[in-house]
């Protein structure tokens, strides 16, 4: 099967407009004849469900939390990009497009990214209309800050709670549609399989997490907006419930998984401090606007930070990347921190940390200004570490944060399975090999508010419900339900000795060590031996207490870890196959004399989309070549 990205013809800046002018429409009075499933209620899913409901489709929306408002998007701190140029500092749609393409190390589709930059303008308008209380300046106009990988201020924010405020905006729009009866919300409900009937995605199988009931849901299209797989590393900045299950089960049904090895390690997280730690907390990238990153010049310098004079400090980001300084992109800043710690210059109890110091900005701007900007982040830091960052520099270290890879989609956000659409972090589409800060919120809302309503309508216009009806009696539903039930029974019956959590922790260590910030052929090959062995132990020695027909947290967790046990192999396989360094994927074999990543455009300028071939079998590779028509890929430099 060849991968057709269905990019519309015409000049880059006209493609989306051309598409919209020619797309097929479903008339308002016909929309209520269609049923659409949206799995996920984060920015992508919540915005999609609200918008499709408002247009008049019948929507069923699912999330595993107790309320759609709790989706992981809520945790985003720093901000959302838009090329509004409200600050008059030279920003434009083109510049946002260019920065995103470059930030992604020339591994994203130009057409998708340009559309994203165009739509960014509407997103801010829409969110303000919904009541999102973005920060404002004294004149009452919207304020902006800078984020990594950009030389303009284009990031809109609501204190350190931008994701919360955006998600609450989406959530309110969603609740309005629920009240109007266009959306039915299924909370505490987990999708466990995708149903494909006659070659088309026609529904899902879910488990009601309160009663354990296995349920069938049929529809004319299925949208997955189920977030990323950053918890494959176990420790990450993601919420505890984040998982790959929905995307992975779709993959097992034939959807291609694209670029899984593009994972983002965020440079500014609170370092690990104990073996029982369950998550790592992000300190927003916005802190790098005013904080300076440094380590002692001498390895083993154990003086307290305030006693180390400037001449003994190495402000390594400012030194290595003078034009971007502390705002170098994430992949670069993360690797630089690792390099400093590998050289024995790391700080803190375990030597895995670098300082993020606000001393100079407090002196320059006053403590009050810093408080206004970051007080909630400083408090969060203090609660966790018991240290006061106004007085002592923060200690930070990189941690798994975001996943650029995801299910393969075309320009319409449709996967290779007709009728299966994928939105938000769950797809692979816009960030290439590295995502710039404040761009995930933008992408989730672009997909959910503005792209899917058009591209889904275009699809549904050709797939009329009366011509091709479906209900849950179709044999495909019985088959999928049978497999789900069997898998649950199997998990419950193992009767071994170890909890799912302990397996997850061990798997995470393997993946972090061999497929984390720096990767090698040998390391990846070792991981590909360890993972199947651990998986085998999992299926022999797992213990799940309780029963399937009750609220059972051990069972929920076991199902998710079971999927990670298989998925981790796909991830390492992709990393092994991509014999180059690009963005978040750093192969130690491919670096220049200064340790910078070396891409190989001749051999790897493509999207790697993997097709399932069976558990433990090597997946089949499909390539989508990337054609750069407007931007000329160059060596990514932030010097």
């Amino acid at each position, binding site marked *: 099967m060849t991968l057709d990205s269905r990019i519309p013809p015409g000049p880059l800046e006209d493609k989306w407009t051309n598409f919209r002018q020619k797309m097929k429409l479903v008339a308002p009075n016909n929309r209520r004849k269609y049923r659409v499933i949206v799995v996920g209620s984060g920015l992508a899913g919540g*915005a999609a469900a609200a918008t499709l409901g408002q247009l008049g489709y019948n929507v069923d929306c699912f999330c595993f*939390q*107790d*309320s759609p408002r*709790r989706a*992981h998007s*809520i*945790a985003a701190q720093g901000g959302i990009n838009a090329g509004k140029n409200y600050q008059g500092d030279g920003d434009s749609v083109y510049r946002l497009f260019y920065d995103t393409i470059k930030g992604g190390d020339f591994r994203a589709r130009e057409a998708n990214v340009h559309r994203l930059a165009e739509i960014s303008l509407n997103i*801010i*308008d*829409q969110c*303000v*209309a*919904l*009541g999102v*209380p973005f*920060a*404002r*300046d004294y*004149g*009452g*106009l*919207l304020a902006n800050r800078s984020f990594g990988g950009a030389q303009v201020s284009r990031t809109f924010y*609501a*204190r350190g*709670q931008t*994701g*919360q*405020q955006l998600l609450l905006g989406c*959530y*309110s*729009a969603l*609740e*309005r549609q*629920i009240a109007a009866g266009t959306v039915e919300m299924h*909370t505490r409900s987990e999708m466990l399989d995708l149903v494909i009937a006659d070659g088309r995605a026609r529904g899902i199988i879910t488990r009601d997490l309160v009663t354990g009931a296995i349920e069938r849901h049929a529809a004319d299209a299925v949208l997955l907006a189920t977030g990323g797989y950053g918890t494959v590393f176990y420790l990450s900045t993601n*919420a*505890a*419930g984040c998982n790959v299950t929905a995307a992975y089960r779709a993959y097992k049904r034939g959807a291609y998984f694209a670029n899984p090895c593009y994972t983002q390690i965020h440079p500014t997280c609170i370092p690990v401090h*104990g073996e*029982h*730690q*369950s*998550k790592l*907390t992000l300190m927003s990238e916005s802190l790098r606007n005013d904080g300076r990153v440094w380590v002692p010049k001498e390895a083993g310098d154990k003086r307290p930070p305030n006693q180390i004079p400037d001449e003994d400090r190495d402000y390594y980001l400012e030194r290595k990347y003078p034009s971007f300084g502390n705002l170098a992109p994430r992949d670069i800043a993360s690797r630089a921190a690792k390099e400093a710690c590998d050289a024995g210059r790391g700080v803190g109890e375990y030597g895995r940390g670098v300082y993020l110091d606000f001393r100079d900005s407090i002196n320059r701007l006053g403590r009050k200004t810093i408080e206004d900007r970051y007080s909630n982040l400083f*408090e*969060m830091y203090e*609660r*966790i570490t018991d240290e006061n960052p106004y007085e002592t520099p923060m200690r930070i270290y990189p941690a798994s944060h975001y996943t650029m890879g995801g299910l393969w989609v075309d320009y319409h956000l449709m996967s290779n399975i007709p009728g299966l659409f994928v939105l938000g972090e769950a797809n692979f589409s816009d960030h290439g090999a590295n995502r710039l800060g404040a761009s995930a919120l933008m992408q989730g809302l672009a997909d959910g508010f*503005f792209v899917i*309503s058009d591209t889904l309508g275009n699809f549904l216009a050709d797939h009329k419900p009366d011509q091709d009806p479906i209900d849950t009696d179709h044999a495909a539903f019985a088959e999928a339900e049978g497999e789900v039930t069997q898998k649950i029974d199997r998990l419950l019956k193992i009767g071994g000795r170890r*909890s799912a*959590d*302990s397996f997850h922790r061990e798997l995470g260590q393997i993946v972090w060590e061999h497929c984390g910030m720096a990767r090698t052929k040998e390391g990846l090959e070792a991981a590909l031996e360890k993972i199947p062995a651990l998986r085998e132990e999992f299926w022999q020695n797992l*213990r799940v*207490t309780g029963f399937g027909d*009750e*609220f059972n*947290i*051990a069972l929920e967790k076991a199902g998710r870890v079971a999927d990670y046990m298989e998925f981790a192999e796909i991830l390492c396989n992709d990393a092994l196959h991509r014999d180059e360094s690009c963005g978040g994927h750093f192969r130690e074999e491919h670096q220049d004399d200064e340790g910078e990543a070396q891409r190989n455009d001749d051999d790897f300028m493509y999207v790697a989309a993997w097709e399932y071939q069976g558990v433990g079998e090597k997946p089949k590779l499909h390539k989508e070549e990337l054609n750069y028509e407007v931007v000329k890929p160059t060596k990514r430099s932030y010097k």
Partner: protein
Amino acid sequence: MNLTLHIWRQKNAETRGKMVRYKLADVSPDMSFLEMLDVLNEQLIDKGEDPIAFDHDCREGICGMCSLVINGQAHGPRRATTTCQLHMREFKNNAEIYIEPFRAGAFPVIRDLVVDRTAFDRVIQAGGFIAANTGSAPDANSLPIAREKAETAMDAAACIGCGACVAACKNASAMLFVAAKVSHLGNLPQGQPGRNDRVLNMVEAMDAEGFGNCTNYFECEAACPKEISVKFIAQMNRDYVKASLSKPSYV
């Protein structure tokens, strides 16, 4: 540290629950409260017992999923802190800790420490939104908003919807939660068109869900992990009176 824990166990909504005592040794003061429960759960699973069900997700104080009444206080002893951000260094060695679910008629227990808070969603459905359709918005800077107004709206909008206010209140009132949403939207120009209906409908929905009345104990503000101020309750009361007076009457 060594701890004695008394934890509410309840199989499901239909069965009665009871407090059960557990001993836990070697707890590190750097652990978060939920990590401490994770360790206990590992040990329970090791023994083949059902782990303790509790709600959690972000573990950084923003999703509002974690709950727990700890030694009689919603979200435990530390001010302005959710359970997931509480660390064991707040407790003494050999402490006895009592852990219960958020209790309120409108929040029935699902299992152990997990309660059903969907009543909050239904209150939002009654009017906690601005009716702005996707695609119809004017330019975001076309309507400047005075900075103080925007900041006040943000103070109210910071609510994470955890329900600690309800759990802390003698009357199980949801006034702080509702007032936060009413004030968030009411302070913005975009929220003016629906302002009257919003407050009337949300208050009606709140009563219908079985939340109690506010009799000014202000335990809600003390328990709120985001320190939402009770001044918003006063603001909502004013809005409510104004809206009631302007409601068209049939007489």
